[in-house]
């Protein structure tokens, strides 16, 4: 259960299998594991399903579309409603070369949380009476209608934190948490990119954002800043 420290992001992602489902933490520029994403690109692995908040918003996840490594994307932001330069993903999507499952953000995080927390699903009002209801079970309880949303898990989670200790505890900075802590709970193999690795105890116990038991691999990398210009 002690996390393993890797020397390079390429080594850390080297065992990701063809066809794997990859949870990718981050929200646009915040808490995004860009080094791990680029390592996954270099690995050349294909037929992947990526689960992420966004693709094509300045994020490097869009780079995985260059060599068509993604078969399927589950995301909340993927196709812009307004104009502007198309992302690689959008071009592939419109060409029918990648599948998209668009999920409301609050539903995506609850499905992931259910996957990590051993729950069989949650009931939400979000999506009732919309396209998101298609193919899903609706329960009527005490006169109220609820959409049943099922758990979502990954084979691998790629996450980003500020610091890790050698046990695998992670500390986030500012708004860098977003999807990372929940995704760390919902995958079989959790790989964390961090800016610094410290000794156990250096991250105060009440400032641990992801407890060590969730983290399998850590790799220290210079963060790659990304920015969405809208």
């Amino acid at each position, binding site marked *: 259960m002690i996390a393993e420290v890797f020397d390079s992001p390429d080594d850390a992602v080297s065992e990701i299998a063809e066809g794997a489902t990859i949870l990718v933490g981050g929200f646009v520029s915040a808490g995004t594991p860009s080094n791990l994403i680029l390592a996954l690109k270099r690995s050349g692995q294909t037929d992947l399903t990526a689960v992420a908040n966004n693709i094509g918003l300045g994020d490097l996840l869009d780079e995985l579309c260059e060599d068509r490594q993604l078969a399927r994307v589950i995301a909340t932001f993927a196709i812009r409603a307004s104009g502007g330069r198309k992302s690689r993903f959008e071009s592939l999507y419109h060409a029918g070369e990648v599948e998209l499952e668009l999920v409301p953000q*609050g539903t995506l995080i609850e499905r992931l949380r259910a996957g990590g927390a051993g729950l069989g699903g949650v009931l939400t009002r*979000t999506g009732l009476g*919309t396209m998101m209801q298609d193919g899903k079970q609706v329960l009527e309880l005490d006169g109220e209608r609820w959409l049943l949303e099922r758990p979502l898990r990954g084979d691998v989670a790629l996450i980003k934190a500020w610091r890790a200790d050698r046990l695998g505890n992670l500390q986030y900075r500012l*708004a860098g948490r977003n999807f990372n*802590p929940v995704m760390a709970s919902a995958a079989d193999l959790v790989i964390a990119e961090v800016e610094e690795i410290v000794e156990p105890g250096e991250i105060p116990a009440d400032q641990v954002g992801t407890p060590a038991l969730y983290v399998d691999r850590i790799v220290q990398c210079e963060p790659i*800043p990304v920015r969405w210009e809208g």
Partner: protein
Amino acid sequence: MPGASPPAGLSRELIALRAARELEPGSVVNLGIGLPTLVAGFVEPTDQILFQAENGILGYAGISESDFDPDLINAGGQPVDLVAGASFFDTADSFAMIRGGHIEAAVLGGLQVSAQGDLANWYVPARGGGSVGGAMDLAVGARKLIVAMAHVTREGAPRIVEVSDYPLTAERCVDVIITDLAVIDVTKFGLALRETAPGVSVAEIVGRTGAKLDTSGPLSEMSL
């Protein structure tokens, strides 16, 4: 009269200013991407409004003028400053706030609003796709939903319609519509005109609205 040249309505900034006036002092407010993000620039610190960003911030203070920190952005990816007393949390906790009814008001953009307050704001059929983000959760969770949008499309077609022909964000969720031409309340009896933009007539607003609009209530010109 879709197709006619539009009357000189409010700029995007003035729509945002008018939307800001709709917010209660001391309340917690979420601003959608696009025009709504401008709203943060039009509240006074003395209003003690706490802006929530669904990516995990309570208490950001408008767009930052200083260096860009990739870990300190709002839901539109823009750098923000913090107020004293801000807090950070993860996405699960953020949407617990939103879905759980803890956000007093949300200001979202819109593509269409229907007579019964259905909102469509995430999917453009002509583009063959869309991005939902946190819009559906905000639409069902925010206690008051303000839609800020242009009254008509670029082609002059009404965005306020009897029944939306766009994929919905949520049914019966909109409380107030603020456009370049008008402030319209969604009531249980339908749409009611509350305010007109300076220099815009009631007839012009009715003409550019694709749903029945009650103009019999107390009416005033927007004060900006």
